[in-house]
């Protein structure tokens, strides 16, 4: 049985809304990055950009948005394809294993971003 217990917010509406809001944050972040890439890209300018507090906060927001957005998307994929209906009796175990792996990876990426940006 596929249930909602591992979904991001437990309700469809919240997951849907979070995914849209986080996509806007990511769009804004990638526009800023693209704008920077269009200018001079060297160590000094890059370092100056990421030394600013607003950019650190913005990067952290983008990393958290990416993690939330990815989890909601991956949860949909896992609960579509990795189910008892699709894979037989082991479906639920395989799905939980994949969800655990994905969540650990996403938390790891967020921590990695924090370490890089704030250290």
């Amino acid at each position, binding site marked *: 049985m*596929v249930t*909602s217990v591992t*979904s991001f917010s*437990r*309700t*469809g*509406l919240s*997951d*849907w*809304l979070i995914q849209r809001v986080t996509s806007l944050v990511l769009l804004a972040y990638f526009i800023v990055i693209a704008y920077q890439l269009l200018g001079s890209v060297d160590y000094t300018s890059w370092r100056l950009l990421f030394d600013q507090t607003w950019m650190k906060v913005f990067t952290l927001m983008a990393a958290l948005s990416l993690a939330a957005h990815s989890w909601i998307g991956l*949860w*949909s994929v896992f*609960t*579509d*394809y990795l*189910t008892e*209906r*699709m894979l037989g009796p082991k479906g639920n175990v395989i799905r939980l294993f994949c969800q655990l792996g994905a969540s650990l990876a996403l938390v790891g990426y967020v921590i990695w971003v924090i370490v890089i940006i704030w250290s």
Partner: protein
Amino acid sequence: MLQVSLYRYNPETDQAPYMQDFSVDTGDRDLMVLDVLELIKADLDGSVTYRRSCREGVCGSDGLNMNGKNGLACITPLSESVKGGKLVIRPLPGLPVIRDLVVDMSLFYAQYEKVQPYLQNPTPAPAIERLQSPEERAQLDGLYECILCACCSTSCPSFWWNPDRFVGPAGLLQAYRFLADSRDTATEDRLAKLDDPFSVFRCHGIQNCVNVCPKGLNPTKAIGHIRTMLLNRAT
């Protein structure tokens, strides 16, 4: 001669489904696909099994997959469905096959039942009828015409993967038909039952349902309206 490849499966005698080829003499007429099936059943193989009733796109019995696209066999002309001189006919995808082209629609009807597709209004009924303004009545256009042929839901991958939890485009079209009805008073209860990660939000808007609906309806648009109602209710 039209080359027809037909999905065959009789669970009492066959180990697995197979495709059977027929050459059908259509007399160069632009027949409907149902006419071709009737010719096969009458002249070539009387054991071919399919559902049909009104043969004019009203009853919704003969929903089939014709050359990869769902539709009603009785109103799909060969000129629309035949590709490369060949017609491949399969049962509606995603539902268990009972025999040949007949599928078990229990899951489909269970989802339809889930949305409580009937008017709910506990106030005493007026002597004649519950009145609507022309504008209120117009809200139901594009919703009430559904004939429950299941072409839409069985073309939806989200329904294929979670037919027990995702209501599907046909059910959601009917859900919105009653949410949009000015005479219905169960809006809050209806919306509360739809706000989980599966019932509505498994729709990713790929619009397969819109592409195949033989009545030209737009379930994706109705699902969008339901999302908006859920959002307004929550904020």
